[in-house]
């Protein structure tokens, strides 16, 4: 089976998002693999291990510094990484467009059997790229899956909805965006890290041809305005809360 995994880099959770003279300053931010992409990659590798002769190819649009992150992804079980260091896409639609071209360029006429993406990137949380990509590639797709059963004939997945679960059925080729809970990503072993050094990371060009659909007009520091009132005991708290309009 041919499996593609789309990876992106996000600031690591310990990074401080700074502002310098009013502008966003990401110079001190450490980039890591988007946490949801780890679940996507893990699922791809698990399927590869079940279906003999499968290949997991990683697609990443990022600055060349993302190589380090891709090494980790290769150590987790990817076979080959393709890094597209190009003009930074301005919005999700441009990202999806570039990814779709990168995937069709690599696989040619025949689409990969499976494409996995994280549910969303933790920095912008738009959750748009995966299904835009599916739509551009013309693949069946489901977002935010928490369970996957793949057979040669087709795929069963589950996704969480408000207060319940939906079970879906679909065919190959298919694209999934992955929610936390689908699996527990493996820890990389020293052996896997050594092996990953021999796996190829190709730096490839990709053109930016779509015009953007959305522009970011400003990014400002978020200022919390709340003043906290310390209450003495539960009695006082209930008194204050029950005075609030229409809470109960």
């Amino acid at each position: 089976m041919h499996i593609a995994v789309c990876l992106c880099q996000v600031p690591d959770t310990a990074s401080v998002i700074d502002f310098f003279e009013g502008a966003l300053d990401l110079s001190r931010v450490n980039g890591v693999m988007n946490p949801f992409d780890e679940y996507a990659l893990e699922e791809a590798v698990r399927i590869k291990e079940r279906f003999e002769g499968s290949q997991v190819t990683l697609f990443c649009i990022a600055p060349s510094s993302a190589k380090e992150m891709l090494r980790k992804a290769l150590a987790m079980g990817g076979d080959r990484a393709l890094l597209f260091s190009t003009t930074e896409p301005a919005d999700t639609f441009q990202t999806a467009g570039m990814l779709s071209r990168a995937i069709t360029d690599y696989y040619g006429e025949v689409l990969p059997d499976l494409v996995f993406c994280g549910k969303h990137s933790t920095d912008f949380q738009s959750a748009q790229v995966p299904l835009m990509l599916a739509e551009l590639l013309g693949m069946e797709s489901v977002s935010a899956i928490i369970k996957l059963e793949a057979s040669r004939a087709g795929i069963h997945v589950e996704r969480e909805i408000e207060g319940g679960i939906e079970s879906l059925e679909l065919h190959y080729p298919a694209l999934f965006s992955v929610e936390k809970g689908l699996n527990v990503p493996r820890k990389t072993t020293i052996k896997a890290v050594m092996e990953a050094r021999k796996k190829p990371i190709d730096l490839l060009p990709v053109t930016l041809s779509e015009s953007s659909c959305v522009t970011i007009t400003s990014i400002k520091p978020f200022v919390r305005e709340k003043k906290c009132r310390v209450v003495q005991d539960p009695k006082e708290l209930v008194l204050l809360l029950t005075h609030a309009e229409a809470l109960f």
Partner: protein
Amino acid sequence: MNTFLVFLEQREGVVKKSSIDTWNRAQELAALHPGAAVSALLVGPASTRQLDGCPGGNGVIYHANEEAFRLYNPEHYTRLVVETMKRVAATTLFFADTALSRDLAPRLSVRLKASLLTGCAVDDAWGENGGGCCQRPVYSGAAIASFAPCRPLKIYTCTPRASRISSPITSGARASVVVLEPSSSTSEELFPLVRRMAMHEGVRDVAEARIIVAGGRGMGRAGFGLLEALARLLGGAVGASRPVVDEGWRPHAEQIGQTGKTVAPALYLACAISGAPQHLAAIGSAGIVVAINCDPHAPIFDVADYALVGDVHLLLPKLIEEFREFLKKR
């Protein structure tokens, strides 16, 4: 001239409150922008009696009440929305921000070549700077970004407002319901196909609850019994921080935070949650925040309206008792 189309989502024949809230907000926006008209599309069999007098304002609610739309089918839904957008010549499509709209909206944005803005607070600033702008937190809540659409067609998935309770607009006007002719394409079996939808019995979803009682690791596994009791008493839902879910004490569906849900309840009670940035980002639009924690320097207090410093295991039983007393007297 702006024409708004509001997608009304039903699950098990009941129109979602968040959808009705979105309809009301579209009506408010239309009132601010002369010449704007609002229509709605209700997809799937649902009792429109529920809508009687509830969504006020002007406009037509188109109801696709075919059985084929009872369960969500991405392709059938996509085709229906595209058709309806054309029918009413809509320029703007509003969804409530739900699991369904997060799945459907990106597909539609490609089909319609529309600008898509997800998870946005559509407020009164919507009409400024040429129109259609909205804001939402990014980078785990450290920053707030303004997004502007560039295409003539726009799609929004709107986050709930904690400050306002979804109430009918009493302008005297009443929306009318038009039942759509059955479409010829719905007999086709289109994939992905939702085979089943299983709802959790008696559990209120944390993303939709007006009151959330959330716990952190300090609660201990058994301590969540107290939170469940309090949530039941107040008609709310239980939420959990990431460590709690990682420990396996609570399901991921209850997780609030960067890798969980973003919530906007009217009341958020954080018990033994210290307040990691990822957690705080997800409760940024909550109404009243109450924090109970033994550490007076816990970051959760920076975002709380009311603080109760002390041991949750001692304070919670008292709090439950006080609430019970209050509810009895009322």
